[in-house]
Every structure is written in C-alpha cells, then in structure tokens.
C-alpha cells in the first residue's frame, strides 16, 4: 500500500504497510539514517522526530498516523539549513556534547522541540523534558549546558 508522508518539507510516497513504525519508514524506505533505533518501546528517545513541531517517538508511531501529507515530519537531517547548523546543533558542537553520538539525533530533536515551545526553560523544565532521552555515554551535563546556552541566547 502506498502512503504519502511529508518529511523535511518534501512529500514522499512509500510502499510500506500502514502499521510500520515511522522510524523504519524514515530509515529503511527513505534512507534517513540519522533517526536511530534504541528500544522500540518509546523508552529511550533515540528515535525522536518532530511531528508538526512536537517531539514524538517515531518507533511507536505507526506511519499511517502521519499519512496523507497533512502532518509535517522533521528529522535531524531537516534541521540544518544547508551548511548552516541549527543553533542547537551549534551549541552541541560548542559544548563537545557527543561521545559515541548514537543518541544525539534524538537528544537534539527533543531539545529543539523544547526550545521551540518555550524560549527560556529553567533547569527543572529542562530536566523534565529531556529525561525521556537516554544516553549511555553520560553526556547529560553537557546536553544541559548546551540547552542552557541557547536558552540564554548564547547558542548562535
């Protein structure tokens, strides 16, 4: 069955079963490998993308839910403007956040969604919002500092 979805401002047609999680459609049908598989049950946040600007776990979102082209899906690949990184990505580089880097697409997508919602979240709000994204390398303190720097206007 052919499904139309809008990803990073481009309409795409994919012949995927409707119950396929959006994660696998992005990765295996559309070749957008930046969105990662971590747990498959919405526990780790590695697969976080934006659906109409909100952070969603693509591993538990059936592709049928975003079918039709009304919902706008944004992935890590859609964040930078050509060679110009998004301010949150800039802050991530500036603070040397990534170690293995596997969870960072999801971390960044969550952070961008948070900062789109509220420009100046306090520590508690950052803690609350970011605690759905696991990192085994232990980059949380740097993630926190990077978000703070953007929230305080120091990220770009």
């Amino acid at each position: 069955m052919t499904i139309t979805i809008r990803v990073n401002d481009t309409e795409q047609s994919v012949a995927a079963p409707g119950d396929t999680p959006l994660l696998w459609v992005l990765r295996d049908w559309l070749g957008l490998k930046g969105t990662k598989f971590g747990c498959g049950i919405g526990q780790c946040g590695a697969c976080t993308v934006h659906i109409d600007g909100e952070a969603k776990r693509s591993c538990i979102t059936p592709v049928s839910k975003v079918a039709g082209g009304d919902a706008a899906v944004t992935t890590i690949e859609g964040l930078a403007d050509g060679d110009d990184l998004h301010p949150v990505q800039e802050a991530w580089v500036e603070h040397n956040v990534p170690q293995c880097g596997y969870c960072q697409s999801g971390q960044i997508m969550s952070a961008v969604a948070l900062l789109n919602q509220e420009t100046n979240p306090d520590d508690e709000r950052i803690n609350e919002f970011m605690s759905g994204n696991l990192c085994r390398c232990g980059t949380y303190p740097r993630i926190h500092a990077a978000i703070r720097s953007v929230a305080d206007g120091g990220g770009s």
Partner: protein
Amino acid sequence: MSDVSRRELFRLGATGSGALVLGMVLPGCAAPRGREPSTAGAWAPNAWLEIAPDRGVVFTLDRVEMGQGTVTGITTLVAEDLDVAPENIEVVFAPVGDAYINPQYGLQVTGGSSSVRISWDRVREAGARVRAVLLASAAEVFQKPVDSLTTNDGYVLHPDGIQRLAYGELLGLAARQTMPEEVTLRRPEDYRYIGRQNQRLDARAKVTGQARFGIDVELDGMRYAVVARPPVIGARLVSFDDAKVRQLPGVIDVLAIERGVAVVAESYWQALTARDELAIEWDESDAVKVTRDSVFRQYRQAADDSAGDTERSEGNAARALAETDNVLEAEYEAPFLAHATMEPQNATAMVTANGLEVWAPTQGPDMARIAAARTSGYSPESITIHTTFLGGGFGRRLTQEYVEEVAAIASQRGEPVKLVWSREDDIQHDVFRPAMLHRFRGALSNGRISAWDHQVTGPLIFDWFARNAAPAQYPWAPQMVYSTLASMGRMTEDTFLTPKDRSAIEGAVDVPYTVPDLWVRHTHSDAGVPVSYWRSVGHSHNGFAVETFMDELAHRAGEDPVQFRLRHLADSPRHQAVLERAAEAAGWGDPLPEGRARGVALHRSFGTYVAQVVEASITDGAIRVQRVTCAADCGQMVNPDIVRMQLEGGILFGLTAALYGDVDWDDDGRLKQSNFHNYTLMRHDETPELNIVLMDNAEAPQGVGEPGTPPAIPALGNALFGVTGKRQRRTPFRADSGDA
C-alpha cells in the same frame, strides 16, 4: 559494485572542502613499510598514512571510535609529528591488518583504555618519519639544507619565508627517499596540537545525523534478518514450524543457524513481527537455569571449599589474622550487568565474487573475521571486515556473535543481509559483566591495617572470550581447528603462550595501601552464564569491594576516611595527590545540609589515578546524588576536554550500576530484564553536578575511557553509609536497606 561506487556509498560524515570525511575506504594491504596507495598518484609510506595530490592526507585509524575519542585523539597524534592540522586530515577506519594489532593484546582490539597509550609512540613516529622524508624531498627542490627548512600545516617552508611546497607536491620525490630509522618527536614545549586540541573531529557528523553506524549500512538489494535465540542459556534448537511465518507479507525465508532460527524479510519490521509467529521447540535438558541468588550460593560454597589461587602475598596474613581478636569481616556482591550500548548489536554481510564482505560495529575486526569464517565457510583471507562508527562499546563489541549470525545467514541466502538485534535481544542475549563475590578479613593495630585478606570468587572472562580470540591469532589455520585453538588458548592461560587473565583480580592485587600481612586470592567458580568485558572489567567490582572495605576499616579505626587512606599511602605519591586534590575540591569536612553526606573512594586503573568524592542523600525514599568531585592523574593529555568527557561518562556509568544495575532470572531460567523499562539507566534529571579536576604533569599518557567508573560505585556507597549508618555491601544499592 565497483570500488569507486562503494567508496562513495560508504563515505561517512560531513562533506565539503576542509570538512572531516570519515570513510570506510580500504587502504590496501597494511605493510609496516609502505604499501600500495588506494588512489593513483598517491603515496602510502606506511600503514597509517597516505598522501594524495588532490585529496591531502588520509589517516587510517586502527582503533575504533565508540565515543571514547580515537578519531580525534589518535589523529591529533599523527597531526603533531606530520605537522598537518587535525581538521585537515581525512580519517578512514582500518581494515584487518597485522600493522594494526594492539600490542597489548596481540589482537586488533580497541579496549583496555589503551588506544592513546599504544599509539603515542608508534603513530607519532609514523608521522615524524613521513615529515622527515618530505623535508628531505623539499631540500632537493629548494637546493637548501634540510635544517634550514620548516613545516607548517601541510607545507614545507623555504627559509626565505615566501616560497613553500605543499606535501602533495612532493610525493614523487618522497616515494624515492629512504625512511629514516631514527626520528625525533616534537618536544612538548613545541606542541601545536597535543594538549591543545579540544574540539572533537567527529562532532559535526554526530550532530547532523551524518555519522554512519553499523546499523546504518545500506546495500543494494539488502534484506533484513532477525534471529530467534534460545529462551534459556544453553537450550538447543530441536525443530520449528515456519508455515505461518512464510505466509506473512514481506517474509522471504526462514532458516536454521547455529544459534537459532533466522527470519529474513524485505524490511526489519516485517522480520521482527514475523518472528513472534514462529513455533519453535527447544531442548532445555542441558540449559543453564540460574538466578542471582543461586549463583551467589554457588560462589559461597566454592569460597568455603577452596582458598583459591594466591595472586599476591606479603607477610603471612592468615597467621596474622589468626593471632588477633580485632578482625573485621565483610562480604560484597557485584551482580551480572548488561552493557546496554545505545546502538543494539547488528552487522551486515554480502557474498561477493571473491568471498564475503562484512560491515560491523566491532571492537575487534580480526575476531570478527574469524567469527564470519566460522559460520560462513569462507576462509579468513577471503573475508573483508569494514568497521563503522560504534554506538557505544563498553566491551560489548569484543564478542562477535552478531557477526557469526549474519555471516551464516548471508552466506546461505547469497544476497546482502543486515541483521539487527532488538533491544530485547540485546539485553537478554548479552554477555554479561560477571557476578563476583568478595570476602574480606582485615585487622587493625594502632589505627593501621595490620592484615588484609581478600578472596575474590567468580569466573574468568577469557574462558568465554577464547572462542574467536584464540583463532584470530592464527588466521591461516583451517576452520576445523578453531575450537581446538580456543581450548588450547584456555588451557595455556598464564603461560608464555597466552597472557594471564587478570579480569577477576585486577584492582584487587594492585591494592595500593601498605599493609604488612597482605593476601589476595581468587577462587574460580563459573555459573555457566556467558560473560565478557564491561567498562573497567575487574576494576568495576574490585574497586567497589576494596574501597568499601577500606571505608569500613576507617570507620572501625574511628578515623576520617580520607586521612585513614592517606596514612596507608606513604609509598604512593600519585595516589596521595589525587586523593588530597579531590578532598580539597569537594570541600571534604565542610558542613552539609541535613540528610546529606559525602563518601570517598580512590582507585587506579588502566594507569590512571582517580579519586572521587560523592555527595548523596536519601530523599523521598530514593537515593539522590547531588555532586561528584573527581580528581584524575592520567599523565600527559592529548585532548583535555575528551579526558574530561570520558571521566564524566565513566562516573555516570558507575553510578548507573550502583543505583540500578542488576540482571536476574526467574526459576525457569528466563531473564527478567528485557528493555530500558526494567534495565534502568540513569536519566537526565538524576544527573549530579560533576566537578572534574585534572592533574597537570608530564608523565606518560594513560587510559581515560574506563578509570572514571570504578571509584564512583564505592564513593556513593560510602556516602550512603554517612547518611544512614548502614553499609551498602551489594549493588545495586537500596535506599531502604543495607547492613548495620
């Protein structure tokens, strides 16, 4: 697929001029002295370097990148003595090759926090030799003495300060020069990059989603596979009914492999959901059905029955303990732990006209090659291993079962196959950090430890690791002798043929405290649970046990735990220094809010001295860690911010084990943990404030990936003792229990 198109396909990372490009380009046969270049007109003077007129410097990185920073750190080493800025060097991951063997292990292993330590001389010398030859070549062109020339970021400079030659312009001449035997490395006061480079070269690729991990490998016509593995350790496949599965959409094949039943489908999701419909009969007659409790019962029995092998003995601890009344005894339990790398295990393989190609996020490409040979029937020389970025390693990717599985499936199918383990597969079929039992007896005399007896009980990791490690050292051996080589490896452990397995005792035999009668012993007991290396290996449990017992002795002696340790470190100035530094930075002894306490621990591992002070409380019935102060002495630093990152990560890895790490089975031998909802990792909101203090000295560079982990566990336990007055003698720690 042609080599060119494959190269395009597997180029990794950001592109564009000046940007780092990480590729899985085969640099050709790795001979120590020069090799065939991968592109026409290029010069490949050694196993690590290739310079092309149009491509610049390509560095073959022989230690994999799993977050610990080899892409940046080792590239910085070659950059320093070749004199090319690290960001102007293209990095490719090494194939299997003799030149890339880690001399510490005799295998092409990335582990043991050894990458900087083993590369410090050999990679810098490789860069320095090439620079010397480029200088000599430029001297011929300029008709000037070599001594009058200098270099700067890829150019040789004429003494007139105007003329210069790019390295790429000198390749023809350079290729005819003889490599100098002796080279001088750049002096520390002249370093341009070592100690100064603080950015990560892979950061941009990792914040844009462009970094390519094993799970991201994509091949034309690729199929996806999942494997149904035994539900209990050691169960064997009897039969399976795939009639229903074969009717499901997208399913291509169902086939038996050594480890279970593989489902191959057009997409991963179809393969994964189809697997649930398989009806499989397993023979559990030889299955290993254990629980955490049964394993520790077995260890206690073994420890009662056998004093074990003496691993270190000074004076006569047994007699000294028998002759005194003031003996403190304590027993500690460290459980099995899963690695839980964020990237689940995976691998991709493809049969080609010449053999088998495998792409794998692996810490041991040579062992991966043996693993692939074992199950595909191809000989190691006809197998090519491509290494990718690793989404975490922590020792997990030293064991190669995912390569064995994918090689079996792809060779049977004859088409490209990517195997992906689900998170449930990854946790339930992990090779665990071994559970270990520690028994101590200690005696005090005039406030000093007069006798120390530490009995470590548990398995040896090499018994489980020899399977692919031993044959990897004999890649020419036929596959039929692999098991013989593995058994020989195990039997010759601790002889001239096979190094001693220190995994049970490291961190125990090297206890730094001065004690006149000291005995450290190991009682071997293996419960049949597959085990492996886990970040900091033996130090992870010995650090916990030794540093908790030290705290208990300090308490018994009625002395401050920092002072008590210092009193036993008269001969260990670097231990002393980090401990004093950490205590000072943490405000040791300063008043704390009600309900909060500090705990301290000191542990040297992988050459690096680390002291930590943890501040913790029990709030609303849960353990809370407010702050960790960490002082570390790792000698010279290549990249100080990566050192900091590794210590931060190591601490949180240790705290995760202390707070949550546990693996257990039900009475039928089924593992209880399966995913992150019940194998818990620390989250963002639980993260303490981390204060890392780095000692500045000119000592030889040491490991940083693992040493942050061991002291975090006992430092937290010792802090909790300060809060509750109860000892935490087993991990994970419990807010509501402990021993009085």
